[in-house]
């Protein structure tokens, strides 16, 4: 437009209302969500948002000696960190169900504080892709009788594909699953070139992955219930993990993928539903995690992770709106209140009991 008088509503729309409004809305949504979580779930019910059923463990991480990934002072070659990890199943309290499994890592042997945390789930792609989609996902999650994503999956085929990718039934061990962080994070290395990074963990000995369902139908996928005549108990995976660590320990390979940033980046790069092409973005070894002891129920439950626990140069990417793919991490970063509310609840009401071994199956509460 040549003159100021020609400024049309749509321009104002674009340059002012959109930018500011979008950001404001995102902030409001994120804060509201955290408050609601804290007030209605984490504090009164003493629960995590999703991964209540888990087991913690500890050991160390050693960064590889000859990195192939772009150099970064935090991941200096040969550097060693104490680690805590937590393996969990979302969201039911029954290991024998078809659940998403997770591995979260913190580079400290403390339940809360850490210089670097990363949370990862099974499956290469996720069930949601933006704050808008996550909130829709949360709203449609009608958890009942071992079914929770049906309503969401019916409307959002990509969500269904995500559950198919992440669901694991009858895994032989937490140890042999592959875990992906899915969303990209900032990676500003020693060369000061801006990059984005994704992380994953695979077993160090390349043990084949277990628990994948072969070509499930839409309905099979929505039905996460235990199979008829199931012989595995509610805690079988956690017991197996304890046995394994006591017997031989566990070694994992932490890997990284990097993508050089560009000025006019295709937003789809940040879409955690789209896998980065492995030829252009090969997985490179970051370090080896060696686990030698498991944590008891209390310590496992106290151990918590946060996307805010990251050096500035490796942190969360900024987001513009609730539709921005990066808004997913924005939401997580703003949910600190929820974690703290849970911690507070233990101080007020005491620790929650371990999940009982009983025949109350397909449930998401303790069901004693």
């Amino acid at each position, binding site marked *: 437009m040549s003159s100021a008088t020609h400024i049309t509503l749509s321009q104002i729309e674009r340059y002012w*209302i959109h930018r500011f409004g979008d950001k404001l809305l995102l902030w409001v949504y994120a804060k509201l969500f955290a408050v609601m979580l804290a007030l209605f779930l984490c504090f009164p019910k003493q629960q995590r948002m999703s991964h209540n059923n888990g087991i913690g463990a500890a050991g160390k991480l050693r960064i590889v000696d000859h990195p192939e990934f772009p150099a970064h002072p935090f991941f200096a070659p040969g550097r060693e960190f104490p680690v805590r990890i937590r393996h969990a199943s979302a969201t039911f309290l029954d290991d024998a169900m078809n659940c998403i499994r997770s591995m979260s890592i913190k580079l400290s042997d403390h339940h809360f504080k850490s210089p670097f945390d990363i949370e990862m789930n099974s499956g290469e792609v996720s069930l949601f892709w933006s704050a*808008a989609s996550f909130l*829709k996902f949360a709203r449609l999650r009608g958890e009942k009788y071992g079914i929770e994503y049906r309503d969401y999956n019916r409307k959002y085929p990509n969500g269904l594909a995500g559950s198919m990718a992440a669901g694991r039934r009858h895994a032989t061990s937490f140890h042999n699953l592959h875990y992906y962080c899915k969303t990209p994070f900032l990676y500003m290395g020693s060369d000061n070139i801006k990059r984005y990074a994704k992380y994953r963990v695979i077993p160090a000995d390349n043990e084949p992955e277990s628990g994948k369902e072969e070509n499930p139908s839409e309905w099979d996928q929505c039905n996460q219930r235990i199979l008829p005549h199931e012989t595995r108990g509610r805690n079988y995976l956690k017991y197996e993990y304890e046995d394994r660590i006591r017997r031989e320990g566990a070694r994992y390979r932490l890997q990284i993928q990097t993508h050089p940033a560009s000025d006019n980046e295709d*937003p789809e790069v940040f879409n955690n539903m789209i896998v980065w092409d492995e030829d252009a973005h090969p997985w490179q070894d970051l370090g080896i995690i060696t686990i030698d002891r498991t944590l008891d129920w209390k310590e496992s439950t106290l151990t918590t992770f946060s996307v805010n626990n990251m050096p500035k140069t490796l942190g969360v990417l900024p987001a513009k*709106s609730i*539709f921005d793919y990066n808004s997913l991490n924005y939401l997580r970063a703003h949910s600190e209140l929820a974690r703290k509310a849970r911690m507070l609840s233990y101080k007020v009401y005491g620790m929650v009991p371990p999940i009982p071994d009983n025949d109350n199956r397909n449930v998401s509460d303790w069901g004693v």
Partner: protein
Amino acid sequence: MSKTKTSAEAAISSAPTDEASIREIIDKCKRETRIEYHYGDGFFKPRMRGINHLELGRSKIISSPITILIEWLYVQWKRVRDFFGDLGKRLFPREGRVWCDRVDSHLAGQTIFAGDRGDGAPIHHLHLEFWGRTWLGHWRKFGETKTDKEGYFRLPFDLRQARRLWVRRVYFEIQTTTRVYFHEGKPRFHFDVWRRVELPKGDLIGMDYNLRTIRLDFWRYREGAYTPRAKVNASGDEPEHYSQGRIDALMEQVIPIELTKIKHLDQIELDPGSLTIPEIQADYPMNLTTCIEKHLPGYTRGDEWFGERMMNGMNRGTFQPDAKKKGHYWIHYFGRCWYESNDVYALPDVDILFKLKKNGLPEPVEIHLTGKLNSHEHDPWKKRVYTPKDEPDWTYAKRVARVNGAFNTEVEEHFAGTHLNSEQFAVACYRNLKLNPVAALLMPHLKEVSLIDHAADKTLIGGYIAAATALTKEGLEQRTRDIMGMQDWKGWKPMTPISKAHSCAKAEALFWDVVGGYVDRFVEDWKDEIQKHWFEIYCFSEDLVNHAVPVAFTAPQDAPPKGAKWKALADRRFEYYCQQYSFDPTLERPVVNGERKAISRITAAKSFHEAGKEDWQNLKDACRYAIMMATYMHTWINEHQYDDLGEILYSCGGLRYGEKPEGIMAPESDYGIAPDLERSTQMLWFTNLLSRTEYGFITRNEEGDVNPHFAELLEAKREEFKSLGVDIDAIESRTNI
């Protein structure tokens, strides 16, 4: 037998007898009773509310001044509403611009035909659009797509555009081709919104939004119908709509006759003794036979006229050569056969033997009537033979033959052969032809037939015909189904003329040539596109075949009753129909679910490069046939209805047995065998309605949907048609009445 002579018979002696003068009178009457069309709008004139309101009893016509005034106010209100509607369209145009900076989302799903039990087939190539409306009412288009061959779609759009705060509501639209028109010789398709669904805007969160399987009542086949029919809901969920012009034309023409019928019905209710058949007759416009009777009393009851009309009148009889006597031919009109019937109306089998005269016109020499002629007999096989020597029975027998001929022509040739036959092509066409140019070839000729057939179900098959003829609704439905079992495009040829006077057959052949030229050129001109979208032709053919009725009498439920006589009758009918409908029984026809279908397959290949070498010709032949049926074949009967069925005592749908022992073998003066008063006024109302309210002519091209080439080819033959007594301006482009 009574020997009463009618006044007409008495007066015949004073009329001219030489052929030239008679011809002159006939031609004059044809001109005088010819139907003129002038469309216009009247002020304070009774109006009808629409074609769906036509009823046998009192149509919803408004005639009192108060209701007219209310109606007038209603019309004014409608005008104001339309004005604002138009204004709205002008203020908030739906522009073609697509509001999309970056595609990051899709609406996904599949469209299928709704089925009564489970899912129907996928709907391919359906046009879909995604729109939003801002708080200020402006329309914004976000994207569009078409369903693929399996009915799946992924409509791309920009999430940020659809989720803008400005945008108040978002709509998913399913659009269909509602009109084809020709512009600079090229067909153009006009899409209209067929279903608009508001989507919850908040559900759009990026990636794919699954609209899942969308079951549509789109050109759905009506379940449980006797023949392939479109499902038309009374609620207005119609697969298509009449054009406004067609509705207006009907209103204009039908009002006076509607008022006449109402007057008669009131009179019958209040004082039936005050009305007679001649009075009813006199209240309706003069028709061809009453006109001739005025100048040549008795002529229309004579042998000459009988032969001429059987050959070149509405019936366009099928002449089967006599096996032994040269120059002799038979026309067969089958009676009630094994169909469910009542015992009020007579309907014997009629076999008429003709001898060709020197001038090529047929002269009746024998009439055989088989079956009940009065209420006392019960033998359906009793046969009686009449010759011109048997006066007055000969005259009565001719009337019986005329009446049976009219019944057969209306039910079999008109309703089954043209209406139902065209409808099966229409449904298959609208369901399947979307991108293929053949849609432009067929749609103009197949539109509206499904709607008029739906109206006919109620008013004719389930109404007037069932109450004014020997067959019940059930019997009529089975009979029309059996006739549909004789309709196939493959190998169809027009009637072969048997003499130089056989102008009806000649005109038919001439028109067949015109359609052939038109179809051939169109298909060749659009060859590449037609072949590219051959999949649609395949689906069209599959729908035609899979929904077609089985070959007549072959399926268990269509079989004649057990017994040699019934079987012989069925065989005789089958053989005769083969000639009548040009049906080649030796063709190998597709078998579907154990039924041998009447209709041949056009192609069995989903893509053109896999198509058989006959398929290209098959496509041309099938289109040519469908257009022939929907235009010429229908027009012929439809517009001659008032000529041959416009005089109650001359011919009608059925003669009643009456009380007397001689039954239907009685003079016209015996009103006990004629239709009753109610049926009489209804009959004239119907034949007037059907013949007078034609709209949509090839040469007039009121809606710009007729391919100019078709009209050109026809125009080039104007004189030739005229010499055969056919006015090309009266040939309809579609079957819609």
